[in-house]
């Protein structure tokens, strides 16, 4: 971005401005599934303060959210619900797969847990851990912001 000191005019590519706006105000969906949701709450609370990265506006309705943090194991009854929630989110939208269960079904490799949320929805960033520390989730978020800045690749 180029900025003129005197006249207050900003010259930039429209793409860059849009991406800057998108990455600086991610609105996560308030969807807590399991253990990871507790760490997600801790990330949003005072010590780790997700607001520092512009992503503290947790929305309860998918219509108002553009980031889905799949926080925990995705079990069989919840699979179609998760897909529907993703479909209900307006474009552009991103997905963080938080924790081992959401990414690969983790320690629960069995009939009830889907081994990888990427089987039903596209995932942008995988965050490892069981559950991931809040720092790891923040790192995942920063990675996602970088991905948005670069136009969809890392």
């Amino acid at each position, binding site marked *: 971005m180029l900025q003129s000191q005197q006249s207050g005019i900003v010259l930039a590519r429209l793409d860059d401005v849009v991406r800057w706006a998108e990455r600086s105000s991610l609105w996560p969906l308030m969807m807590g599934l399991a253990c990871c949701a507790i760490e997600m709450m801790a990330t949003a609370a005072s010590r780790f303060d997700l607001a520092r990265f512009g992503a503290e506006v947790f929305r309860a309705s998918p219509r108002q959210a553009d980031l889905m943090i799949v926080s925990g194991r995705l*079990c069989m009854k919840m699979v*179609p*619900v998760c897909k529907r929630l993703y479909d209900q989110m307006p474009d552009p939208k991103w997905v963080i797969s938080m924790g081992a269960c959401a990414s690969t079904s983790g320690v629960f490799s069995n*009939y*009830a847990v889907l081994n990888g949320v990427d089987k039903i929805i596209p995932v942008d960033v995988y965050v490892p851990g069981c559950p991931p520390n809040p720092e790891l989730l923040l790192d995942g978020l920063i990675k996602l912001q970088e991905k948005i800045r670069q136009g969809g690749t890392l």
Partner: protein
Amino acid sequence: MNNNELITRDTVPEAARSVAEKAGTPEGREMFLRADKDAILPLCRALHDDPALKYNFLSDITAVDLYKQEPRFEIVYRMYSIPDGRRLWIKTAVPTGEEVETVTSVWKNADWLEREVYDMFGARFTNHPDLRRILMPANWIGHPLRKDHPLGNEEVQFTINKDDIVPQTAFLNEHFEGMDFAEYVERGDEINTFYGAANMRKYEQEGRIVLNMGPQHPSTHGVLRVILALEGETIIDADQDIGYIHTGIEKTAESLIYQQALTLTDRMDYVAPLMNNFAYVLPIEKLLGVEIPPRGQFLRVMLNELSRIGSHLIWLGTHALELGAVSIFLYGFRDREILLDIFELLSGQRMMTSWINVGGLRDDIPEGFTDLVRYFLDVFPSRLDDYHALLTKNPIWLERTKGIGYLSREDALNYGVSGPILRATGLAWDVRKVWPYSAYEEFEFDIPTGENSDVYDRYLVRMEEIRQSLRIVEQALSKLPEGNYRIEDYKIVLPPRQRLDVSMEALIHHFLVPTHGFFVPAGDAYVSTESPRGEMGFYIVSDGGTKPYRMRMRSPSFSTLQSLPLMSKGHLVADVVAILGSVDMIMGEVDR
């Protein structure tokens, strides 16, 4: 009077005389009966109704699949006489294809418990009012906890097996009736929603408003679905649909050795993981017949009570947040961070520490641990006073919680409600006092009770419980005995690292214990513990091997949640949020 004197051939009715086997402890506080399946209903009714017996609390109904044996299913009933502190187990054998009479007419919470047995094992109950699946999707094929139901796992990929791996989707394609997995992803929500609301459809036909709440809802504490029937804004009936986080933990545990299965228990009640570890190891230690040294017991109690405080802080934060007090949420999480720092110092993990294991603890407390606990004990009481100052006399808080969600003591017992909600009805029933486990009898603490049994009283009871837990931690810290923190049987626990250089046997054990596990004598055991939500316990059935034949968790919220319609009838929609907050269920432990 004890069980030995009370339960005789004369006290049980004619139909139940075929009680074949009877065993119990000499003092008669616990008893075990093996009854004929046709005798179950009259026997249970007599036990419940007889004024001398007073078995007014059904703790659990579960089943064991004795695959390749006949009769195939063994159904286990566990009930308590709350006034006298007596316990009774009844086991009955049910052959394949035969049914056993339901006991829903005796205890209300048998409803869901029997539905779960049906869902998981396919054993049916005659005259059950509503025998539907409860945890699995509506069109699932098979009953997962049967031994011949596949685990449905996908093997970890290595170079040697990458061509032989069957993907999980192949398994899933075959397990949904009338559709493959891709179609289930698209249409499954519709099917499950319709199936789960079966009891509420009649209100829709009457022209009433039926409101769906969840599973994606900010104040259902996870993925619970509540269906409300409304008259204007007043609730006339409610029903719950659970199973949205059924994880198959009990099935997976059957394929793991005891120490591996321990790590799964952390993830059941995930706001107090150490308590699950504790509850899980107790029945195994009972089967093994080992006695934990005092230092280990004290440390276990200390960690247990710190977990209780952590769990209550999450409850306080989210409960207040849902009713509009955002600051309490931030404060609650601020204090919980100190507790997580304590656990992280101990184990390197913030939440899922798996630190309490069979035979004691994984390791002794590290340097600096007591200082950090002492710091918490110093700063936290005044903060608790702050929360009282913010909420206890706050007019908005009082307006939202006083007189909401009343549950009478009779109903609470009939629904198998335990923990703070039962104590809010004025009954001082706490497993730590009634049947002390570990070293709880050596600690001084009170059991707070309420009077009005509403949301506000449950709030007060939990707040006071935090204070009592602080007292216990304080005592455990100041009286912490010297000595070993675990047993010295190196066939069960790992031998100390430094012995590997000098002892061949230690080297063998160091290899065998983690890879092969230890043998647990055949038999079954159940130990109750007091979790932040009520009576929690694990039922372990061992066939003498290194893996549990059956692991079952008695989940406190599973029973408590059934009383939700009773608590919410006549209140407004917004009050359901307050009531759910006061129930403080964790869906991970309800659905397992």
